[in-house]
């Protein structure tokens, strides 16, 4: 709590003190000169038992008026000084771009479904972020580009999710992902995703949620480490989710190690997972990780806090008016 116009407050206090002083001095100087009625035998009134009672009541009302008036002026002075509360916040940057970069090879479908569902829900909370979706296998296809049209993104994600979990799907969503020389071109996929970021001049955080088992079956244009360097050069964080990094799939263990290296090389995080249900918590961690990384400078937030002085002022005014009414009656 502090006052913005402290000078004004001091000014008012000085003025109030001056007014009180002048009034007191004037009263002292003019005591007895006013049109007072001088009476004798006042004790006939003041000695009455009811007088002491009435005098007590009178003094109480006077004290009430005095206190309430002081409170009222104090509230007014404080209000004129603009009472504010100061808080520092570390704003989470809301200018994030997230590209979901999903490997749609058969083994990844369950994980993709979870990722898509989770992000579909996350679009509810988004404000300023942009999200895009890229599916890749042998080639990468932009399902939808980076957009802040959340209704659209959600619609797309939900449609994709429905396809992913439908056992009788016609795989139409994967059209165009098999145009390369082989399948599962992981490096090409990541590089394609990195290229989906636009507006590179603006200061935005860019990250890729990269879900793959890094099992390459074909001839890639770019290897995964090369794609990682490319991402790094574009200042893109890659968060890797690898369902293949489990003991039962030990034969692709070196691919997993490679992926971990690449992902962490970009400054992102790497998760090995064997249960699709772990995806939501990982996405949450991705969000946190990003938030940690992309919080802005602490900002001093000045919030006006007039409620208490205003209410106190009103209460004091009511008290002044009530006591004044009793006194004048």
């Amino acid at each position, binding site marked *: 709590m502090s006052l913005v116009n402290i000078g004004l407050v001091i000014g008012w206090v000085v003025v109030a003190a001056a007014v009180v002083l002048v009034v007191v001095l004037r009263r002292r100087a003019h005591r007895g000169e006013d049109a007072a009625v001088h009476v004798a035998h006042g004790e006939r*009134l003041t000695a009455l038992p009811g007088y002491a009672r009435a005098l007590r009541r009178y003094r109480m009302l006077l004290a009430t008026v005095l206190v309430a008036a002081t409170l009222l002026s104090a509230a007014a002075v404080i209000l004129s000084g603009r009472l504010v509360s100061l808080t520092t916040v570390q704003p989470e940057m809301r200018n994030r771009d997230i590209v979901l970069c999903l490997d749609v090879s058969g083994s990844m479908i369950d994980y993709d479904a979870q990722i898509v569902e989770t992000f579909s829900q996350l679009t509810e909370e988004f404000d300023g972020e942009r999200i895009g979706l890229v599916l890749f296998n042998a080639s990468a296809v932009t399902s939808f580009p980076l957009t802040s049209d959340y209704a659209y993104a959600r619609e797309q994600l939900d449609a994709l999710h429905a396809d992913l979990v439908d056992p009788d799907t016609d795989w139409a969503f994967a059209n165009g992902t098999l145009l390369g020389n082989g399948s599962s071109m992981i490096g090409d996929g990541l590089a394609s995703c990195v290229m989906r970021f636009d507006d590179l001049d603006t200061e935005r955080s860019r990250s890729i949620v990269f879900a793959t088992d890094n099992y390459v079956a074909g001839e890639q244009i770019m290897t995964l480490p090369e794609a990682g360097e490319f991402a790094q050069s574009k200042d893109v964080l890659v968060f890797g989710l690898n369902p293949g990094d489990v003991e039962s799939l030990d034969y692709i263990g070196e691919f997993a190690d490679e992926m971990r290296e690449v992902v962490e090389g970009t400054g992102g995080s790497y998760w090995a997972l064997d249960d699709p249900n772990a995806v939501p918590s990982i996405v949450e961690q991705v969000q946190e990780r990003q938030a940690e990384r992309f919080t802005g400078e602490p900002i001093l937030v000045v919030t006006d806090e007039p409620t208490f002085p205003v209410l106190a002022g009103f209460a004091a005014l009511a008290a002044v008016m009530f006591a004044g009414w009793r006194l004048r009656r």
Partner: protein
Amino acid sequence: MTALLTRVKTTLSIRAHRRVRGMLDGEYASIFRGKSHEFDDIRPYVPGDEIRDIDWKATARAGYPLVKQFIAHRKQTVTLVVDTGRDLAAAGAGGEPKRDVAVLVAGVLGYIAVRHGDRVGLIAGDADEVRLLEPKGAESHLERLLQVVVERARLDGAPSDVHALLERVVRTVRKRMLLVVVVDDAAIDEETEQLVRRLAVQHEILWVTVGDADVMSADWATRPMVDVADDRGIPDFLRRDRRLRSAFLEAEVERATRSADRLDALAVSHVRVARSSEVVPAVLRLIEAHNHARR
């Protein structure tokens, strides 16, 4: 300083009082009836004169009523006994200072006495000092007496002390005379009663009470009020209190009744004057009552 006696004369000569004035002269003369029978002169009858003083033979000869005048009547002494304490400077029931009413009362009676050829003296005092001024028969002397009262009865003067004043009268005044006691509404206590009883035996006493201002009157409800006794203010809030007002009025009525009863019990003629305009009729009523009581 304005001539106080001028005000007295003006008051006596305003139309409403003209008839009263003649009666005042007569009633005043009757106060001293029967004190001496040394014949001096005859003069025309004025209302209030004793019927038995009428000189029937002279009246028959003249065709209009004539009364016998006795020497003793002409050299009576009237002593104005006036409280000149601070209380007298306080407001009276009519709003003006009680001193002004007191001066008018003393002036009217003194003026009648002087015109009647009597001598008028003054014993005026407060807690500080009691002053004695010798009786003399001149208007200028009366003026001086009234000036003394006005000068002494000030807001910054000493407190009133009716008891000391009357005690002084008891101690100093030996000769039988007419005492005109002018005090305010101060309660007549036991001691004062004793003094008055002693004085009443020796002297004719006319007791004039100058009414105090009603503290709770609406006339000055909005003005600040100060008690002259201790300079303390009486807040207007309290003066408007209805319950307090009724209690106060009750107490006032009781006190006034008790004072009046005491004076009645002592057979002292008394009257209460609230404001200047009431002075002349009140003084007439007082003298009439005084004469009537003795007849």
